[in-house]
């Protein structure tokens, strides 16, 4: 019993600490950015922070929104559902108007319930799980990326109709994004009588060597590889395949349609197909967004940067068009008002998926992603 006393002391101490940080009031519009900013998935979360920082700086310099300055609240969720609920609770306490995020579908799902109860909307640049919009459970959820099933359908159609292939090896990275996509790709391939899935496998992200899987692809007689996942695994796979003189089409997704992929995989990236938002190369806003990033951070933007940029633009537009920051007017504005973004002219449909984001297939040619028309 003696020591119980000490415990209680500590609890008291911890509690008092909790109040060290007080709330601040002010005439500003608070916008949150949530996603993994540390840990192994940080490289998917940090570009979104950068996009938001660039845009907020710009809009504040131009006098803010509705005459108010925009304040950014950046919170880390490490892509873990349990941390995301705490992050979400914190953001609710901060009285943010909207959240740009979260990045991972799992963390997003965990956080959405809390936002929904508190009347906060979220626009994710990267959560692709179809259930987020299609289940109808999350009316406050919007996204500027195509859901897994849409991307998988495009990839499968491209492989069957344009490339005219029939035997496929479907690979994924065992994550919620990659595996979700690969599952859909497999489903669509199996539904089509022309196609045959000869291999369906997950590779372990971060593993040092994929030789065994590549041997297996080779042995299965697949004519093409459809890969669901992110660019680090894709570049490891493709470079090890090419080194082994295996030259079959490699078709992948938005997570791979990233300039970092080409830079990392180098010459091996040549000829890889990936789906991605339409016309990003000629879009004036896209070019500007990339330039701004290079000026401010001195490097090429990372994963989901353009999607995040579009999400922030859409949110700013919704605030300006509706002239308010309450949940009703904002969701309404997001669903009705078109806005020019890095992804084209978009608005959101009733479920929260972006309308007007054209998707097309790209191929790496001479070290650049070229849109295939």
């Amino acid at each position, binding site marked *: 019993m*003696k020591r119980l006393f000490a*415990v209680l002391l500590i*609890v*008291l101490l911890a509690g008092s600490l*909790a109040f060290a940080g007080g709330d601040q009031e002010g005439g500003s519009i608070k916008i949150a950015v949530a996603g993994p900013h540390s840990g192994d998935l940080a490289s998917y979360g940090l570009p979104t922070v950068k996009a938001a920082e660039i845009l907020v700086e710009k809009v504040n310099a131009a006098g803010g929104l509705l005459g108010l300055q925009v304040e950014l609240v950046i919170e880390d969720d490490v892509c873990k559902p349990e941390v995301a609920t705490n992050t979400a609770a914190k953001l609710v*306490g901060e009285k943010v108007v909207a959240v740009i995020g979260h990045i991972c579908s799992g963390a997003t799902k965990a956080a959405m319930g809390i936002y929904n109860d508190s009347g906060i909307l979220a626009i994710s640049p990267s959560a692709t799980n179809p259930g987020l919009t299609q289940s109808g459970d999350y009316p406050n959820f919007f996204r500027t990326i195509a859901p897994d099933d849409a991307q998988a359908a495009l990839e499968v159609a491209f492989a069957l109709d344009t490339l005219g292939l029939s035997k496929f090896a479907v690979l994924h990275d065992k994550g919620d994004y990659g595996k979700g996509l690969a599952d859909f790709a497999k489903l669509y391939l199996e539904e089509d009588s022309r196609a045959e899935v000869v291999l369906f496998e997950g590779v372990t992200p971060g593993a040092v060597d994929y030789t065994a899987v590549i041997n297996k692809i080779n042995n299965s007689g697949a004519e093409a590889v459809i890969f669901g996942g992110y660019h680090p695994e894709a570049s490891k796979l493709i470079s090890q395949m090419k080194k082994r003189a295996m030259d079959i089409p490699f078709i992948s997704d938005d997570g791979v349609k990233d300039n970092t992929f080409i830079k990392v995989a180098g010459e091996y990236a040549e000829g890889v197909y990936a789906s991605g938002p339409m016309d990003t190369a000629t879009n004036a806003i896209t070019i500007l967004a990339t330039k701004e990033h290079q000026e401010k951070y001195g490097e090429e933007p990372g994963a989901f940067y353009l999607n995040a940029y579009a999400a922030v633009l859409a949110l700013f537009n919704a605030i300006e068009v509706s002239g308010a920051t309450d949940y009703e007017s904002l969701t309404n504005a997001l669903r009705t008002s078109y806005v020019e973004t890095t992804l084209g002219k978009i608005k959101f449909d009733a479920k929260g998926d972006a309308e007007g984001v054209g998707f097309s297939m790209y191929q790496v040619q001479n070290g650049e992603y070229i849109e295939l028309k």
Partner: protein
Amino acid sequence: MLDIMKYFTLKEMKKSLVISIWFMILTFPIMVIKVNTIENTVVWRWASLLGMGIGSFIMATLWRYLLERKNMKSPLSTKKTLQMRVVEWANENPKVKPIALIAVSIFVLSFPFFSGLYQTSIMTTALMYVVLGLGLNIVVGLGGLLHLGYAAFYAVGAYTYALLNYHFGLSFWICLPIGAGLATIMGILLAIPVLRLRGDYLAIVTLGFGEVIRIVLENWNQFSFGPSGIAQIPRPGFFGMSMNLQTATTYIYFIMIAMVIFTIFVVRRLENSRIGRTWVAMREDEIASESMGIDITKSKITTFALGAFWAGMVGVVFAAKTTFINPASFTLWESVMILCVVVIGGMGSIVGVVVGAMILILMPEYLRAFSEYRMLIFGAMLVIMMVFRPGGIISNIRKKYKFEPAQAAKNADKEGVR
């Protein structure tokens, strides 16, 4: 008494200077040169070299001062530690205890009503780790078996609730004992093959076990819905009342408070019971205890089973609190964090585990103010805590039976022995 001024003599300054130069050279490539192989540019950041030099100079001085202070407290010194003094003071003033107890209970009970959603939420998480830590403490602290796969049992509890609720609509309160029970069974299943292993071999097998469970959950789509996880898990109900977010969070907070009290109660009982003493004996020396007639097999199995029980129970609460689970929450990292809770707090000590959980879980949350430096500071704190308090924050004071010759002689006289 050690004087910090001593460290400002020329000789000591020189020492610090050498250390700081060493660090400047050591961190040179990573801190100063920033290459971007994508852009093919090199940036030389000389300012960070200077910062490193000054920073490490100060740190080196401070570090040596603190280390020397720590070393001066030899185990033979009669100087009382703060912990001992607090305990003694409390013993001398019997009135303090009930007052403190009441104050703390009031604080704990009213916490969610004045602190807001976020504070309640993270405090609930911390309480969950208190129970997890106490559970793992049975295996690691009392049983002396290094367990690196504890998150697997946690996962069993969480998935039990999520799946039973999804398929059969079973409620939180029904799933709570089922989850705990299934985890206990898993604990026994794990204990049987590893009976012969000791020390780090045991650690690696439990680590493997944890990973196997996670990978199965990740790949077996038909059973667990794979990496996309299970969403829309209902929060615990209270006689069918519908609750808004604030009430529901507060409610889970109180469930966890009750659970912590229950756990502390049971673990205290266990500790001083026959089983508990068996565990401690096993921890201290397996062979000796076996030759004293302790059934090592049985006691190993009970540690694993009883340890797993709490993880399963908290797992159910976890699923109910986050309303979404996927295998990413049950990685090796999670097991390691729970182990840190036990060791940082002080192995084998209940108070220690409570303190450890509070610090380890709340610290990263409060460190959010440092945003990107959060995990850097956290890692450094782990090292610093271990270097300066290797036995944990609250070390376990074993019950001692003091032999006082004078008293003993008197007793002997009284009883007319001899």
